[in-house]
């Protein structure tokens, strides 16, 4: 039964997932072209100096892309469920409500993670084409919190969309914005490297919070 929930959500999301993946690959392509341009316009040692010593980043378009991807997938997944309260169909299925909700979130998160993993691979591959392994490591350490921001954006959007009361919806929005913003505020490339496990735990801890609005939707009093 749980597998059926996963299959249903996969059916719903596959077209949106492909669209999201295409968008991300387009941005990766753009970053690659921009990177080649950097080396075409300047000597390689100048570009290396700027990236390694001055901390310039050539992959800025990746910064907000995971957030956009997370929001896009959450809206694609949960907005139709909220239209005419269609989510009631799923919540009436003979399965524990938390399994139903977590099944939905698992598929959505999985879809976002797969796209963001493609981003990470693309970024690692293109960085390693022009830079040494140390730069690849710093680049990935810089991009990983952005990818985690994509996950919090997905969870936050789900939290907002599933919440039936507008007051708590505003509260959820504020919490989600704050948490997502936290992942995007690195002072320098790789600044969050040492606290990456903590940030990962934060995302894991945020995940079950989606149960709260879903329960409020299921067992509401007004």
């Amino acid at each position, binding site marked *: *039964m749980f*597998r*059926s929930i996963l*299959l*249903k959500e996969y*059916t*719903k999301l596959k077209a949106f997932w492909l669209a999201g993946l295409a968008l991300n690959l387009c941005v990766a392509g753009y970053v690659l072209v921009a990177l080649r341009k950097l080396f075409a316009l300047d000597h390689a040692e100048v570009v290396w100096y700027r990236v390694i010593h001055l901390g310039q980043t050539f992959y800025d378009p990746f910064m907000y892309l995971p957030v956009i991807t997370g929001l896009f997938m959450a809206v694609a997944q949960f907005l*139709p469920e909220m239209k*005419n*309260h*269609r989510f*009631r*169909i799923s*919540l*009436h*299925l*003979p*399965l*524990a409500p938390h399994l139903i909700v977590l099944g939905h979130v698992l598929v959505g998160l999985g879809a976002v993670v797969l796209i963001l993993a493609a981003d990470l691979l693309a970024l690692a591959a293109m960085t390693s084409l022009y830079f040494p392994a140390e730069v690849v490591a710093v680049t990935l350490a810089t991009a990983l919190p952005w990818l985690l921001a994509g996950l919090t954006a997905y969870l936050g959007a789900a939290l907002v969309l599933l919440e039936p009361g507008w007051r708590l919806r505003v509260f959820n929005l504020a919490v989600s914005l704050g948490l997502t913003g936290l992942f995007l505020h690195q002072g320098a490339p790789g600044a969050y490297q040492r606290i990456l496990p903590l940030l990962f735990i934060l995302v894991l801890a945020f995940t079950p919070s989606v149960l709260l609005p879903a329960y409020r*939707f*299921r*067992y*509401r*009093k*007004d």
Partner: protein
Amino acid sequence: MEFAIEVDGLRHSYGKRVIYRDLNFKVPRGKVFALLGKNGVGKTTLIKILMGFLRPAGGACRILGDESHNLSPETRRRVGLLFEGHLAYEFMSIESVERFFASFYPQWQPELYYGLTDKLGLPGSHKIGNMSEGQRSQVVLGLIMAQQPDLMILDDYTMGLDAGYRRLFLDYLAEYLAEGDKTVLVTSHIVQDLERFVDEVIFLEKGGLATQMPLESFLRGFRQYCLPKDNGVKTPRRGAAIKNVEESRDEYLLYSFEGPEAVGRCLAEQGFASQKLEIRPMSFEDAFIGFTGRY
């Protein structure tokens, strides 16, 4: 006697607006019930409570023995819900939605589903989102029937359906119900359709009063009386034998469960001559409006 639905001292309010103070009714198993009432009497609220998507402020609402807002998965398996607007997974196809729901219900009967959807003449890969409201209603009804629930709650199944699809829906439902011991609670804005297959009616009135009776008793016992106007300024009042009074240009229409003598006496007490009082036949819809009032 076991009841499919038990509503006992139900209370609910939205802020200071009280919807029900003490609502009571019981739905025995194996019958078809219509929940009727004018707009604004709390029908939608009651359906939300019965479907388990609203927790009542007080009292009890039990569905097959479970609190409606806390149905166990096993009880949910025995309850089929049709949501207003024939809600369905629009991204799924005729075949994929059947496969999806079949995995949840051990007693699933695909032939009941396909018996209905095959009549649509659409390929199994046809998406529900590309269907008309009428076609979607057949898919949704097919899914509920294949589920083999003990209790079906059908919320305004007529919404968006033309006369042909309404008839088709009811014909299939009646055929399905004839074969088993199923309980159905149905609401509809087109009451005349219900006359063909409903056993009992529950009238919900403002303030949370519920009147429950067999449809046959209602149709036989509830009467419409016509009293020509006598150019006086007074209007007959409801109360005692008179359930409701409606006024047209030339006459008063009085509605009552009582015979002509009792209604005549009631009118006489109010100062009206009742010699011209006559019984006028009425349809189920007329009787419904007479019972609940136009406004």
